[in-house]
C-alpha cells in the first residue's frame, strides 16, 4: 500500500524545467533513498512535498490526504502538512534550548504542557540526548545538533520524516555512526523515511529501496540495493553508482570485437543472444570485475600499480584505451600482483551491455 505518492509532478523555475511528470511511490514503514547528482531536482521535489515550493502540475498524496493537486486546485499550506523534515544544515534554532526546539511543533498544535513534556522526554531518550535537554545548540556538536533535528522532525510526525542530506556536514566516522543510528531508529519506530542524498554509498547502506534520478530530473530506476548494483537499468545508473570502465564493441563477421582505437581486440566474454541486435554496443565493467587471466586473448600492459591497502589498483593500457582494475588483497596474496610494465591477459566478469553512444538504452 503506497503511503506517499508523487503523480506527474512538474516544476519550473523561470525557463528551467526542473521536474517534468515525475512519479514515485513510497511504501509505508520503508526507508526510501532518493539519489541523484547535485542540482538534479531532488531537493525541489522534497520542497514540493513539504509545501515550500508549488508545482506547476501534478498531484501529491500523503496517506489518504491529497496535499497538492493542480487540477483540483488543492494546495495545503506547509504549516498544515505535518511532515517532519531534517535539513542539511540541521536548522536547529540557536536561541531556543533543545527542549524548546523539540517541543515547538507540539506547541503549535496547542498540545497541553504536561503532554508536551512527556513526549519530549520520550523522544530525547530515543535519540540518546536526554542529558542535553536544557542545552543550547551552540553547546552541542554537529552530530548532537543533528539528533535534535531528528527528534524535532519526529515530533512533527512519526509517520513520515524527510531527510535532506542530513549527514553531509559531518566527518566520515560520525557519518557512519549516524547512518547506523538512523536505521536503528527507523526500525524501532516504523516511521516512513524519505532520504535524499547525492552520496550513493549512504543510500546503499541505508535504503530499503533506492530511487535514482538523473541530472535532467528523470527517475531512471527504483529498486533494492541488489537491483541497482547487479542490474543497473541504464548506463547512467551504472556510472553513477561507483567507478566504471566502458568499452565499445563492434560487430565484425558475426563476432563482437573491442574497439581499442587503432586496433580491434577479441572480446573474451559472451554477449547474451537477446542483445545481439546492435552493430555497436557499449559494455561496462566494474574495476573489481576484471581479473587477470593469462589464458585470455584480451591483452594489455600494466602502466601503474598502486597499493591501496584492502586492494591493489591497476591502470592497464589496451590499445588506446585505459582500464582500471581492482584486485582484492586476498586475491593478491593467493595469485600474486601484477608488476608495472608487465603484459597481462584480462577476463571480464559480469559485464553490463548497453546500446551504443547517444542515449542510455533499456534492457
Amino acid at each position, binding site marked *: 500500500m503506497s503511503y506517499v505518492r508523487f503523480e506527474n509532478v512538474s516544476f519550473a523555475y523561470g525557463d528551467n524545467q526542473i521536474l517534468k511528470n515525475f512519479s514515485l511511490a513510497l511504501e509505508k514503514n520503508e526507508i526510501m533513498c532518493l539519489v541523484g547528482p547535485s542540482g538534479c531536482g531532488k531537493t525541489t521535489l522534497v520542497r514540493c512535498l513539504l509545501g515550500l515550493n508549488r508545482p506547476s502540475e501534478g498531484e501529491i498524496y500523503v496517506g489518504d490526504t491529497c496535499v497538492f493537486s493542480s487540477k483540483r486546485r488543492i494546495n495545503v499550506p506547509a*504549516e498544515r502538512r505535518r511532515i517532519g523534515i531534517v535539513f542539511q544544515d540541521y536548522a536547529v534554532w540557536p536561541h531556543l534550548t533543545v527542549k524548546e526546539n523539540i517541543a515547538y511543533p507540539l506547541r*503549535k498544535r496547542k498540545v497541553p504542557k504536561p503532554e508536551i513534556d512527556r513526549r519530549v522526554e520520550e523522544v530525547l531518550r530515543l535519540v540518546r540526548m536526554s542529558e542535553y535537554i536544557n542545552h543550547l545548540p551552540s553547546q552541542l556538536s554537529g552530530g548532537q545538533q543533528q539528533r535534535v533535528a531528528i527528534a524535532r522532525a519526529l515530533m512533527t510526525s512519526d509517520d513520515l520524516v524527510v531527510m535532506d542530506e542530513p549527514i553531509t556536514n559531518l566527518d566520515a566516522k560520525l557519518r557512519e555512526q549516524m547512518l547506523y543510528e538512523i536505521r536503528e531508529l527507523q526500525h524501532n519506530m516504523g516511521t516512513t523515511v524519505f532520504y535524499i542524498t547525492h552520496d550513493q554509498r549512504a543510500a546503499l547502506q541505508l535504503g530499503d529501496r533506492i530511487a535514482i534520478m538523473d541530472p535532467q530530473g528523470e527517475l531512471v530506476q527504483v529498486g533494492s540495493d541488489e537491483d541497482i548494483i547487479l542490474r543497473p537499468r541504464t548506463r547512467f545508473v551504472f556510472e553513477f553508482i561507483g567507478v566504471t570502465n566502458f568499452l565499445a564493441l563492434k560487430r565484425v563477421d558475426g563476432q563482437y570485437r573491442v574497439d581499442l582505437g587503432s586496433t580491434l581486440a577479441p572480446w573474451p566474454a559472451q554477449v547474451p543472444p537477446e542483445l545481439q541486435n546492435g552493430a555497436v554496443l557499449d559494455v561496462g565493467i566494474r574495476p573489481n570485475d576484471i581479473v587477470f587471466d593469462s589464458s585470455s586473448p584480451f591483452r594489455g600492459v600494466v602502466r601503474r600499480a598502486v597499493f591501496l591497502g584492502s586492494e591493489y589498483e591497476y591502470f592497464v593500457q589496451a590499445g588506446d584505451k585505459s582500464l582500471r582494475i581492482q584486485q582484492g588483497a586476498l586475491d593478491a596474496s593467493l595469485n600474486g600482483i601484477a608488476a608495472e610494465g608487465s603484459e597481462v591477459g584480462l577476463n571480464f566478469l559480469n559485464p553490463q551491455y548497453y546500446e551504443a553512444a547517444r542515449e542510455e538504452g533499456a534492457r
Partner: protein
Amino acid sequence: MINLRRKTRDLAVLDGRRRVGLDSIMTALSFVLLLVIVVTPISMIVYHAFFHQGQFSLDLIIDQFTRDTTVSAMWNTIKIAILVTIFGTIVGVFYAWLLGRSNIPGKKLMRFLFTIPYMFPPFLGAMAWDLLLNGRSGYLNRWLMKTFGLSSAPFNINTVWGIVFVELSYYFPFVFMQVVSALERMDPTLEESARIAGAKQGTVIWKITLPLVTPAISSGALLILISSLAHFGVPSILGFSQGIFTLPTRIYAVIARSGGSFEGIRQGAALSILLVAVVALALWIQQRVLRSGGYDIIKGKSMRPTVINLRGARIPLFILALTTLVVIVLVPLGMIFLVALVRAYGLPLIPANFTLANYQRIFTASGTLESIKNSMILSLSAGVITMLLGTMVAYVVQKIRPRGSSVLEIMSVLPYSIPGTVLAIGVILAWSGSLGLNLYNTLWIILVAYIARYLSFSMKTSSAALLQVHPSLEEAARTCGASHTESLRDITLPLIRPAMVSGFFLIFLPAMREVTTSVLLYGPYTRTLGVQIYSLRDAGMMPQASALGSVAIVLIIVVNSIVNALNQTRKGV
C-alpha cells in the same frame, strides 16, 4: 546546499490563494517611507540649486562657484582631507604593525586607548586642543612662552595643520582597524613560503606582506578621505577665528550670516552641490580602487601569524607608541575636565582656582537642561524609529526580494555618502512649508534629519544579522506548523534582536553627541547638547562650555559601559 538565494517569497505565497499579506504591506511601506525621508530632501537640494522660481537656471551655481571664498573653501577642504588621509594612514599602519605583528608589550592597553576616539565627538577634541594651543590664549602656549621666554606662541592650532592634526587623531583608527585585521587574519603560509624560497624577514615584509595588505590600507585611507571631506566639527572650532573655511563650514557660515533666510539657504544648496560633487569623486575613486584590489588572503582556520621580534627596539617603540596615544587621546580629555573646573578662563590650572560653580551654572540655566533633554529625546526616538525602519527595509530587501529592491537598497544607503551639512539643508528645503508641512524650528525637523542620516547604519547591521538567519530556519518553523507571521515572530525576530539592540546604540550614541546637522536646524527652544556647547563657547563662556562638554563625555562613557555590559552578558548565554 543549493539555492542559497532561494526566493523566499515562496514562503509567503503558500496559501493557495494570494492574500495581501504582511510582505506586501512591508514592501509598500518601505518604498513610501524611504521616498519621503530620503529622496525628498535630496531632490529639493538639486531642485533649488538649479531652478529658480520654476525656471532652470545656472546663475546661482555659477555665482557661488566663482566666488573667492568658495574656491578657497574648496581647496582647503581638499587639502586638509588629503593631508589627513596621508598622515592618518601612516599613523594607522604604524600602529597596526606594532599591535598586529610585533611583540610589543601593552597591546591590550593600547587597543583600549584606541576605542576612545570613537566615543567622543571630534569637535570636543578640537575645543580641547584650542584651549591648549590657541594661537593667542592657549594654556600650553602661554606656559611655554613663560618658561622658555619666547616672544610668540610656538604652536598655533588655528591653522590648516592644526585642523589636520586634530582630525587625524580621530580618523587614524579607520586605517588601523582595517590593517590590523588583515595582518592578524592573513594566511601565514603566504609569508612562510617566501622564507622557504630564500627570502629574509625584511624581504618578506617588503615583497609579500605589504603588497597583500595594500587593499586594506586603501580601504581605510579612502574612508578617512571621505569622512574628512564632509567633516564639520573640527574646522568650525579651529578655523572660524582665522577665517579658514572648508566647504561644510562655508555652507554653515553662508546660512548663519543670512539669518536663515531663503536666499541664504539657496546659496547653501548651491554650495552643497559642489561639496557633494567632491565627495562623489572620492566615492568613485573608492569604488574603482576597491573593485580591483581585494586579495583573498584570509584563511578560515585560525593560525597564528608570524610575530616579528623587535629585540632592542621593543621598549623604545613601546614608549613612543604609548606616549603618542596618550597625547592624542587622553590629553584633550584631561583639558576639558580641568578647564571645566577653573573659575575663569585664563587663570592657571591649579587647585586654588578650581570651583564647581561652572557646573552649578550650567545645571541651573534652563538652556542646558533643555538641550540635554532635547538630545535625549531625539537620540532615543531616532534610535528606535531608525532601527525599526532599517530592519523592515533590510527584511524587505533580503528576504522578500520584490521587484525594485535594488532601488530600495540604494535609497537607504544614499544618505551615508551625503555630508550631514548637506542633508540638513535638504531637510530645511523639504520641510519648511514648501511641500505643505512646516517643521522648521521644531524638534521634528531634526528628528527627520537624524532618521535620514542614520538609516544606513541600521540597514547594515540588520542586513548582516538577517543574512545569518538562513532561510531553512524559517522554513523549519513552517514545517513544524507555524504560519509565516508566527515564524517571523518566533524565529527571525528573536535571532536579530541582538543586532537590533546594537543598531539602536549605533545610532543613539552618535546622535547624542552630533552637532553637524543640528547646528543648521536648531531653533530657540530646540537646541541639542552639541549645539548648546557650541553656543556657550561662541559666547566666550569657555569654562561653562567645557563643563557641559565634560557632562557630555560622562554621559557617553556611561551609555557605552551599559552597551558593553549588555554585549558581555549576551556572549555568556
